[in-house]
């Protein structure tokens, strides 16, 4: 009998590759014997462009990397620049940041759940999660005026104060979402097809996962109880009470369980943040570095001068380098910023969680069926805007 392997291009325009990922698969019948992910189709040179922009003008570009979690990207960048400057955001800004990044986490995980379920045959999930996502995007729109590329965080605080109808909108999310999550579980958790497609698929051992640099929910599904929000708290996360969900099975189903539980934990954090939202300024008062508020700029001469100087000239952080990481919905998101004392970053490096996670794809799929590749790509949760930058 003649045995010949076949090479198949999955993507870059395959609907189940979440964008423009191309996976070159070598198949023996239907079994994958080699898997090579090819990335770069969405490369836009954000790191190069950032070197020619004033510090505050880089923030809108960070949205465009992980466009499903724009506020997490904003937060990582702002924290890195704030560390460089020695500026700390006021309490209200920190709590609002926590609240909004958790809303971002919900947003990201919801889209993940919908597309992952769609990929492996549960079409209706996508419609349900987009119904819920609408509530989250309405909050985005209320605070920043944009539904996706929010650019709401600023160096030293927030763009603007939280709007007056912010609280009722967040309360609605807290009230309605737990019921929705129960609905998702009713549809999926004990669904035989869902279990057949996910249980025991895409297993990676704890040691292999660490060796491959995997972070975030995938690592927690492999049994490592690690979350940067807990162990290296930033933006007042230490004041919030939440659990880190973990699983031992390390398959696609475990990742689904971890992410679903993470969404419930996010709701807990949102509840605490909205209940205890401090009063006060939403921008730090650091003249010459942090932009004055609009009211100050209109009614105080010094503030007006600072505003003008900041917008036209920018500020000069001290020479040095910082590496700041946060727990984004996809994993460990790091910003490495080098300052040479100028008004623009000398080098801005983004440590993209999706990029590193997808590089381990071949370990998940080799030896399994072609159909499992789709489930594995879905369970890794990638955003190609971030992989390619």
């Amino acid at each position: 009998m003649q045995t010949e392997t076949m090479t198949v291009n999955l993507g870059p325009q395959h609907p189940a590759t979440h964008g423009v990922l191309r996976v070159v698969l070598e198949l023996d019948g239907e079994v994958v014997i080699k898997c090579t992910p090819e990335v770069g189709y969405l490369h836009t040179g954000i790191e190069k462009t950032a070197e020619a922009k004033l510090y505050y003008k880089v923030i809108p570009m960070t949205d465009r990397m992980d466009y499903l979690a724009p506020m997490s990207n904003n937060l990582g960048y702002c924290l890195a620049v704030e560390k460089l400057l020695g500026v700390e955001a006021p309490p209200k800004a920190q709590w609002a940041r926590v609240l909004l990044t958790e809303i971002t986490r919900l947003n990201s995980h919801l889209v993940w759940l919908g597309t992952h379920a769609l990929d492996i045959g549960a079409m209706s999930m996508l419609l349900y999660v987009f119904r819920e996502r609408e509530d989250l995007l309405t909050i985005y729109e209320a605070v920043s005026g944009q539904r996706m590329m929010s650019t709401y965080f600023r160096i030293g605080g927030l763009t603007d104060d939280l709007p007056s109808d912010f609280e009722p909108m967040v309360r609605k999310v807290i009230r309605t979402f737990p019921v929705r999550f129960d609905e998702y579980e009713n549809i999926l958790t004990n669904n035989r097809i869902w279990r057949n497609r996910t249980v025991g698929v895409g297993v990676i051992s704890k040691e292999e996962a660490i060796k491959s640099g995997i972070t975030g929910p995938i690592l927690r599904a492999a049994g490592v109880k690690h979350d940067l929000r807990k162990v290296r708290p930033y933006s007042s996360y230490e004041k919030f009470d939440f659990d880190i969900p973990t699983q031992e099975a390390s398959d696609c189903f475990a990742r689904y369980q971890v992410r679903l539980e993470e969404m419930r934990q996010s709701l807990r954090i949102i509840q605490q943040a909205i209940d205890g939202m401090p009063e006060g300024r939403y921008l730090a008062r650091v003249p010459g570095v942090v932009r004055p508020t609009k009211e100050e700029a209109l009614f105080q001469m010094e503030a007006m001068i600072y505003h003008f100087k900041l917008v036209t000239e920018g500020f000069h952080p001290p020479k040095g380098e910082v590496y700041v990481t946060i727990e984004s919905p996809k994993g460990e998101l790091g910003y490495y910023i080098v300052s040479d004392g100028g008004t623009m970053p000398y080098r801005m490096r983004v440590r993209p969680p999706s990029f590193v996670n997808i590089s381990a794809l071949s370990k998940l799929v080799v030896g399994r069926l072609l159909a499992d590749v789709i489930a594995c790509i879905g369970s890794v949760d990638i955003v190609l805007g971030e992989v390619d930058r």
Partner: protein
Amino acid sequence: MSNITRERVTAQFGDKILATTEHFGELAFVVDKSTIVPLARFLRDDTALKYVHLSDITATDWPEREKRFEVIYHLYSYDLTEYVRFKVHVADKESVPTLTGEWDTANWLEREVFDLFGIPFDGHPDLRRILLWDEFEGHPLRKDYPLTYETPQFTYNKDQPPEVIK
């Protein structure tokens, strides 16, 4: 917290550590390129440190220096919950030993540095461009690569190439 790292690394490697800095509470070592692999292994395997997670590999370009590139490694310890950074200075076309034998993550991260800076890695199993296409000329994250240069040049702008901002 990072003191233990500093002490143990200095005790083990002594004068092989060319410089130790701690800015913004971040510990960094500068080493020679022959020390990268032993240092990485030591940081990973030492029972008191256990920097088992290779977080990032990147580079910066300083064209006015004699050795223009800095290759920068970030490791993370799940036990200490601390990052450590070490760097190596290399000249143009000078290669750096690979860490692919120690971490699988290094594969793609080193390919990215090779792609965008043109720094070769010795012993890398699959050193190809990753984000840009194979025929691409130049390495965009070098400081002397123009910011707005469009490649490939298309027929419609071949005679009037766009303005190049250095």
